[in-house]
């Protein structure tokens, strides 16, 4: 015999739903029509009786048509699911308090303590265990170890990733265990959107926090700076520092560029001002990519020292090439170069022209002249390093007692500056430079021969055919033709190339020391570059070349602008380039870079041998070396094992067929910490808020008991058979219907209604 433990009312009529609505509407219509027909009836009691009878008739008719019945059922209770989420993020490695166990250990201990209580709940709910951090992952069981390794904490993401109706069983509740140190959508606290998302989960979340939120810790929370800065322009680095549980203290902050302190500032923090934002400013004095580190001291008893420094890479670029143009006397050569430099928006030109020598007689008192003293000391002692390029054009240094400043110029070039000497009667040997401290940085040296004033057509050397300075055409042939079309020029300082210099343009037949006298020669000197132009008639390539109506001054402009780009090491003219895949990487990440090498003619150097070294940028200590070869496109990818925290330089040296192509470098910063590890403070208040919004309870793990759990009631579902018993097929109901209809008909007749 079947046993039923539940029942419910059902309609047994096979009508579709819309038909039932039509029938109900008809019944209502019947009542309304009756009401309209009874309007002439003055006696309210009669109207009420007749209308009541009509309504009862309609209800009885509907009852028959709808066929109501009772369904007897067999039911069962389905267990809901209780999800237990355990924090597996890296911040759980931190201690719950000074000198205490880690938060992860505390969480494990708590779970062990409340396991009996959880087992109790297992009678009505199924327990599911998960770990969360970067994402939600199921655990094999309650005893599964949760290693705190995730480099992010996304609480809301984890809650939303929980399966809602797994296996037909609904989620009845959540127990969330962790430190609350969210660094995803709840990183800045509870927002309106986050509240909505939590409410839409439709389940109470009970929370348990580990750590008391009073960790003693000083942290550099954030460092904000532009991706790039302009050289010689002030850069501001915005640093947010926070201190928890440290009392009042003055924290000295330091900004370092690869070990060299470039800015310092102190910030006062205390219980009432736990967070401060300060600006550290400095003026970068050279271009390139550098690793900067903002650091604060590590105090005793801090939860972590990893967040006391922050590293970033800053690319320092030049806004404009700053050129110092020093001219011995006004000339057409100076005029055309000045016009070119002045008209180039990328050049910031500072000029000093000697308009009057000691022998000149202006025949006017000083106040009637516009002349200014030549500020030798200011330029060559104080400002020299602010220039990207220094040009000496037919300039005699001796009358200005510059002997003592020339060593500065030599050092300036050695340290990365660029220098050009342009010919004339006061340049090179004629200007006494062969005996000066800058003789060693010049690409040419005097041979004691007199100036040659003969007109000549300079000749390109093999190096000059491909060099970016003298490459006037798109191809070697076009370059050769372009130079051949330029007008011959008069006059040359007769010199010979210094060892290591590269001659790009030479005199066709004036020979010095067995070599053709250089017209244009270049040299790499230390970290800088120099160029010698041993004529003062390069302006012929502009003005005289324009007389024919072909080409105009474009070759002159191209020559000089390419020279400037090469001299100031325009990155586009570098033959070996190193480009880090990522310039700032989190800890324990391999360092990767792409290296491209070009031949002398700037074509991809296939099969070039690359020696790639990874150096510590601060100490210069080598870390690792890799040797590899470029592919058909002249590039190769290098990857170094994670080197630890700090600033690193990837330096590549390329060689093809035994000929060195050059070197290139890039920098990579390995951050001391991630956002996950940097935030040492637990956030119990966030977990409490989550519980409050969703209707759950919240408690500290130290209570060693479960928080209030408002679990959804288990669902009851029908199982097995059911039996329908009709209610409409009752005899007395037929009598009731007949009585109502008959009664109404009789009373209508009797009271005079149709």
């Amino acid at each position, binding site marked *: 015999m079947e046993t039923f433990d539940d029942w419910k009312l059902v309609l047994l009529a096979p009508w579709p739903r819309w038909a039932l609505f039509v029938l109900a509407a008809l019944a209502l219509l019947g009542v309304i029509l009756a009401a309209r027909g009874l309007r002439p009836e003055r006696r309210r009691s009669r109207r009420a009786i007749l209308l009541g009878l009509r309504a009862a008739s309609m209800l009885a008719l509907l009852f028959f048509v709808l066929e109501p019945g009772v369904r007897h059922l067999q039911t069962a209770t389905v267990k809901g699911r209780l999800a237990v989420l355990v924090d597996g993020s890296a911040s759980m490695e931190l201690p719950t308090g000074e000198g205490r166990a880690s938060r992860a250990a505390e969480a494990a201990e708590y779970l062990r303590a409340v396991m009996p209580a959880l087992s109790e709940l297992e009678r009505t709910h199924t327990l599911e265990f998960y770990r969360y951090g970067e994402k939600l992952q199921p655990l094999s069981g309650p005893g599964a170890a949760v290693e705190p390794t995730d480099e992010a904490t996304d609480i809301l993401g984890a809650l939303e990733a929980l399966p809602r109706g797994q296996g037909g069983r609904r989620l009845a509740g959540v127990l969330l265990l962790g430190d609350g140190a969210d660094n995803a959508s709840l990183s800045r606290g509870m927002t309106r959107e986050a509240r909505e998302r939590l409410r839409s989960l439709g389940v109470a979340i009970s929370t348990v926090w580990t750590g008391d939120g009073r960790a003693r810790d000083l942290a550099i929370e954030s460092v904000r700076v532009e991706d790039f800065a302009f050289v010689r322009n002030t850069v501001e680095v915005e640093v947010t520092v926070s201190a928890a549980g440290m009392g009042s203290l003055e924290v000295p902050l330091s900004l370092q560029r690869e070990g060299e302190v470039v800015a310092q500032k102190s910030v006062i923090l205390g219980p009432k001002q736990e967070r401060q934002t300060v600006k550290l400013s400095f003026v970068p004095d050279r271009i390139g990519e550098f690793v900067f580190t903002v650091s604060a001291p590590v105090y005793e008893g801090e939860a972590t020292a990893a967040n006391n420094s922050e590293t970033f890479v800053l690319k320092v670029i030049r806004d404009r090439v700053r050129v110092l143009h020093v001219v*011995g*006397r*006004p*000339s*057409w*050569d*100076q*005029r*055309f170069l*000045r*016009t070119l430099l*002045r*008209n180039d928006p990328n050049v910031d030109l*500072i*000029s*000093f*022209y*000697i*308009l*009057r*020598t000691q*022998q*000149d*007689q*202006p*025949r*006017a008192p000083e*106040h*009637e*002249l*516009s*002349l*200014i003293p030549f*500020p030798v000391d200011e330029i060559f002692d104080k400002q020299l390093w602010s220039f990207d390029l220094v040009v000496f054009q*037919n300039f005699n240094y001796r009358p200005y007692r510059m002997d003592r400043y020339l060593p500065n110029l030599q050092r300036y070039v050695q340290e990365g500056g660029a220098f050009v000497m342009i*010919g*004339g*009667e006061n340049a090179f040997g004629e200007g006494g430079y062969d005996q000066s401290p800058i003789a060693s940085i010049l690409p040419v040296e005097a041979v004691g021969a007199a*100036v040659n*004033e003969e007109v000549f057509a300079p000749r390109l050397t093999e190096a000059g055919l491909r060099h970016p300075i003298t490459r006037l055409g798109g191809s070697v042939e076009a370059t050769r033709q372009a130079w051949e079309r330029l007008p011959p020029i*008069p*006059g040359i300082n007769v010199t010979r190339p210094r060892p290591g210099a590269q001659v790009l343009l030479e005199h066709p037949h004036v020979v010095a020391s067995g070599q053709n006298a250089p017209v244009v020669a270049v040299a790499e000197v230390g970290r800088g570059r120099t160029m010698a132009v041993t004529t*003062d*008639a390069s*302006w*012929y390539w*502009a*003005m*005289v070349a*324009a*007389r*024919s*109506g072909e080409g*105009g*001054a474009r070759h002159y402009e191209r020559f000089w602008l390419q020279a400037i780009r090469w001299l100031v090491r325009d990155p586009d003219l570098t033959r070996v380039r190193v480009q880090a895949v990522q310039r700032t990487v989190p800890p324990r990440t391999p360092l990767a870079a792409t290296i491209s090498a070009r031949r002398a003619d700037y074509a991809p150097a296939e099969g070039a041998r690359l020696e790639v070294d990874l150096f510590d940028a601060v100490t210069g200590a080598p870390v690792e070396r890799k040797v590899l070869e470029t592919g058909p496109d002249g590039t190769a990818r290098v990857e170094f094992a994670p080197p630890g925290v700090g600033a690193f330089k990837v330096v590549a040296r390329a060689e093809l067929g035994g000929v060195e192509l050059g070197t290139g470098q890039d920098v990579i910063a390995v951050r001391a910490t991630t956002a996950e590890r940097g935030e040492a403070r637990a956030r119990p208040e966030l977990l409490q808020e989550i519980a409050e919004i969703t209707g759950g309870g919240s408690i500290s793990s130290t209570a060693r008991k479960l928080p209030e759990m408002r679990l959804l009631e288990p669902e009851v579902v029908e199982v097995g058979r059911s039996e329908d018993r009709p209610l409409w097929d009752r005899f007395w109901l037929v009598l009731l219907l007949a009585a109502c209809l008959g009664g109404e008909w009789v009373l209508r007749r009797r009271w005079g209604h149709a």
Partner: protein
Amino acid sequence: MKRKALATGLLVFVSLVLPRQSPAFGETSRLVFVQGRYDGDWNPRPGALRRLAFEVAVRTSIATAPEEKVLPLDSPELFFYPFLYLSGTRPLPALSRAEVENLRRYLTFGGFLLCDDAGDGAFAASCERELGRILPGRTLGRIPTDHVLFKSFYLLSHPAGRTLSRPYLTGVVEGGRLAAVISANDLGGAWARDEFGAWSYDVVPGGEAQREVAFRLGVNLAMYALCTDYKDDQVHLPFIMKRRR
């Protein structure tokens, strides 16, 4: 003995008076004035440019060629000498197409033209007309006295020449610099000396002081041609402002 002392004295005198031969790097590195030749009275003030070259060499560090060149206006050789001087007493005849084309390239690619009216202003007016053909679309206008031309070497407050017919200069700007300057005050008349070393013309109304201003303007024009707006550089401004006060 007397003769020897006299010779020595003469040598010292000559060394002081004659312009220093600047040790320039061939002729083309010097400033060579070119006098433009055209059909008409193209050289009304002989010796003017020679004297200006002398004064520029004596007063400044510019190395000048002692003698000017004379070239026709359609000569390609003009391009070796970017300072062109054009003078006349009567209107400049309409330039040929070749002359216009040549001067257009000359001024566009860096040349400098000084037009000097030695007459009654008709030459200056005709130069302004021809400049409209040479550099069409460019505006010819007055050069204000705060222009760098008036401080390129000497601090000047006004232009002057043999006369003060017009108290201003006009000019045409090309590529950010003055490519042509027109004077109606007969600069050459103030500069010129005869074969015996005497001034060729009297300067009116200001006499020798006005001649000095004319020379200073000549020096400034030469300096401007070579240095353009150098004296407008920021570094010079405090000094110049102080001296102007």
